[in-house]
């Protein structure tokens, strides 16, 4: 039993790290742009497929796929921003319309992946040597440990970026007060494009990590990660990146522990219940601070 | 004279801030009570407490002698309180006629009859040509007029106007003053918030001055005009 719990804790931490990344990119996007990216899960899974293609067609290992995904997704996100967002601002209710539009993006992205890769679940047949490492009394797969290390590095880099660099500070300022920052002479369009690109890059990287940590993925896995991203974002407080990082880890732990004690389906329901409960009883998230509004 | 509206010891706190502090006020039918005070004095909050939007922390509100404290806004509205808002809050995607029908939806009268009344009211407010437009297509000043029309539509014995003249051209301002005078003459109790002291002094039979949620002066126009506490609050630090 103790072993099971310990296993749950370690896996919870690893999975939670990934959830944190899934959430933090979504929350950045919402914070700066006030758009709700319903297609976030599909962006993430597209990252997994990129890693898959890089490995199976070009023999590029997942570790190398991380920076490649970051660059590819950054550029794609930058482009997508200019196609999708500026027009959106002209509608009556941009926030809700963004939800709807990304609903479309999510359907289209899933369909596109379906056309390219078919519905079968995919796995990357890449193994580290040794396959697993002993941590205390339990064994953890090396792939998972590597993924976790990358998660930590990316999170720290992101935090440093947001709190220590000028563009990062501009982003946080934009989250807190989008009107003021325009008056201060920041080009909000470029900043938004950058935020979109950054969030996409994070999603792509997360996708690569997911290919390492989880056994398989298919074009329709995206929806699950979208929900997870929503849970994390709401738990952390809409638009609060630090909150999202914390909430991701917390939710990962909760979910993995739930799978130790509960049947699979129940664990999923718990996730949904956490989401609904948070919105009802703690709409500003676990940290209880509202970044905006 | 019957007391149309009365508050006793009305208090509303936001965290540590006492926005409305033990306010006693009363207005009789046919009387206009001016409410003045600097920004943040608590005037709007007072109205919000009266009409039930905020639940007061302490004290009571009486309409025609009956206690309505803590009742939801729609119940208070049916007791006969109509109001306008500092920043116009019209139903943006509804026609002007439909805007006016909203406060009388529970009336027994036939729809056609109510529509006729609404048209008459729009006529009175000089908005009749726009009656089929959506409210969002009106200018800011026209929206203020629409709010006033909507407030008067159910013929409530008590009306509360929050800054009706803010951002309004003098010509329209004069027009609104006339409508408010008419309303009082028709026997309604009028609570009027305004920063425009000339209009306040002209319309009100009595005035209360609020500062930091408390009534610092109360009386006829002449008492208020020369009141040192009011001058201090308005001109002092």
């Amino acid at each position, binding site marked *: 039993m103790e072993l099971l719990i310990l296993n749950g804790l370690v896996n919870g931490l690893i999975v939670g790290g990934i959830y944190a990344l899934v959430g933090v990119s979504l929350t950045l996007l919402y914070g700066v742009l006030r758009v709700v990216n319903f297609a976030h899960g599909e962006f993430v899974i597209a990252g997994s497929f990129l890693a898959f293609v890089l490995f199976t067609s070009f023999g590029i290992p997942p570790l190398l796929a991380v920076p490649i995904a970051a660059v590819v997704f950054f550029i794609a996100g930058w482009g997508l921003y200019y196609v999708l967002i500026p027009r959106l601002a002209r509608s009556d209710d941009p926030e809700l319309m963004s939800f709807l539009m990304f609903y479309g993006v999510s359907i289209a992205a899933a*369909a596109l992946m379906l056309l390219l890769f078919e519905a079968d679940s995919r796995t990357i047949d890449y193994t580290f040597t040794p396959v697993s490492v002993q941590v205390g009394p339990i064994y953890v797969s090396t792939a998972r440990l590597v993924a976790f290390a990358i998660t930590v590095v990316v999170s720290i880099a992101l935090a440093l970026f947001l709190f220590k660099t000028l563009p990062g500070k501009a982003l946080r300022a934009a989250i807190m007060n989008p009107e003021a920052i325009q008056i201060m002479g920041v080009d909000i369009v470029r900043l938004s494009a950058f935020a979109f690109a950054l969030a996409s890059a994070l999603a792509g990287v997360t996708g690569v990590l997911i290919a390492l940590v989880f056994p398989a993925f298919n074009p329709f896995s995206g929806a699950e990660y979208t929900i997870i991203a929503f849970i994390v974002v709401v738990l952390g407080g809409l638009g609060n990146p630090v909150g999202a990082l914390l909430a991701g880890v917390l939710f990962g732990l909760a979910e993995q522990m739930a799978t130790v004690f509960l049947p699979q389906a*129940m664990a999923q329901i718990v996730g949904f219940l956490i989401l*609904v409960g948070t919105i*009802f009883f703690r709409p500003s998230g676990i940290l209880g601070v509202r970044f905006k509004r | 004279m019957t007391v149309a509206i009365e508050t006793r010891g009305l208090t509303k706190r936001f965290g540590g801030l006492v926005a409305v502090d033990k306010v006693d006020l009363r207005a009789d039918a046919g009387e206009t009570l001016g409410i003045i005070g600097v920004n943040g004095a608590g005037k709007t909050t007072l109205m919000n407490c009266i009409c039930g939007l905020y639940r007061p922390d302490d004290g009571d509100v009486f309409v025609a002698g009956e206690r309505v404290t803590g009742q939801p806004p729609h119940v208070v509205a049916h007791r006969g309180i109509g109001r306008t808002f500092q920043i116009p*809050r019209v139903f943006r995607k509804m026609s002007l006629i439909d805007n006016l029908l909203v406060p009388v939806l529970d009336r027994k009268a*036939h729809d056609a009859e109510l529509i006729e009344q609404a048209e008459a009211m729009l006529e009175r407010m000089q908005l009749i040509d726009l009656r089929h437009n959506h409210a969002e297509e009106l200018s800011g000043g026209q929206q203020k007029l629409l709010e006033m029309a909507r407030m008067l539509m159910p013929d409530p014995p008590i009306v509360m106007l929050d800054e009706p003249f803010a951002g309004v051209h003098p010509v329209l301002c004069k027009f609104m003053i006339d409508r408010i005078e008419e309303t009082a003459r028709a026997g309604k109790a009028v609570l009027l918030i305004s920063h425009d002291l000339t209009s306040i002094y002209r319309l009100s039979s009595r005035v209360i001055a609020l500062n930091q949620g408390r009534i610092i002066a109360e009386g006829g126009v002449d008492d208020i005009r020369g009141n040192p506490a009011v001058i201090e609050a308005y001109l002092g630090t």
Partner: protein
Amino acid sequence: MASPSRAPDSADRIYFTLTALMGGVLLIYFASVPLLGLNVAFHFYLMLWITMASAFNVASGFAGYMPFGYVAFYGIGAFTTAILVKKAAFPVFLALPLSGVAGIVLALLFAPTLRLSGIYFGIVSLALAGICRLVITNMPEEITGGSFGLQLGSRAHPVQSFYVMMAVMVVALAVILWLSRSRLGKALRATRDDADAAEMMGVNVPIVRLWGWLISAFFPAVCGGVEAWYTNVVDTETAFNTLITAKTVIYAVAGGLGTVTGPVLGAVAMVWLDELIWRQFPLLNLLILGLATIVLVLFLPRGIVGTLLRKKPQWRRYIP
């Protein structure tokens, strides 16, 4: 509501004539589909989507909510009919109204979410639909048939179910037509535009919202039931498929939220387009649905009818 005490003005006359005309065309056209040997399946689903999009419009266009878990009502309706018919040997005609009741019960359970607004409401709705799906999937196999779903047996009757679907559509459209002119409809719209102001104008906001919500939940539940009867099979994968929500939302938005004709027109245009594309490129179906949504939101956010009325505001009084 009450009959007008004076002669209806000319705008009303045009409105009623147009309504009667469009209603008549719709009625005669659909009624003659099986008689003329037209494609029953296509028209069955066309009516289903017209009903779904129109009922969705009550929650979104009239009341201002975006229930992204709308499929929950459909799914619960499908399973209610299937279980009652298969496991309790209910006659279909008794099971179908009970599907509607199930939808209403579910809507009552979800009623507390009506305090939320904007994306919070949307996200919670989505999560609740997820919970519904999981709960039904994990119910004992003897009740819901597990992952295989339920076969209704040899009770299918395409033409009968076609006409029942038609009746449901007609009732739905009649109710929504009534709603759009009724006092409840005005109260709903006022609540959508500014709930606090509406409340201070004497509108009992929670009750009004609840009515709108119940109307909006009833019809998809019945649709689910009728479709279960029509296809003779129900399983959680299809009955709770998020694509059902997606299509409903997209069709309604395509036509224009807030008008009666909007969702009808949107459903007709999009279902027809869907069929056309699907025949040509079966694989591209989903992709095109997604792209169509994006294009719609970006270039026609008010939908067909909404855009038209924006250009010709004076037509608002003529077009239902």
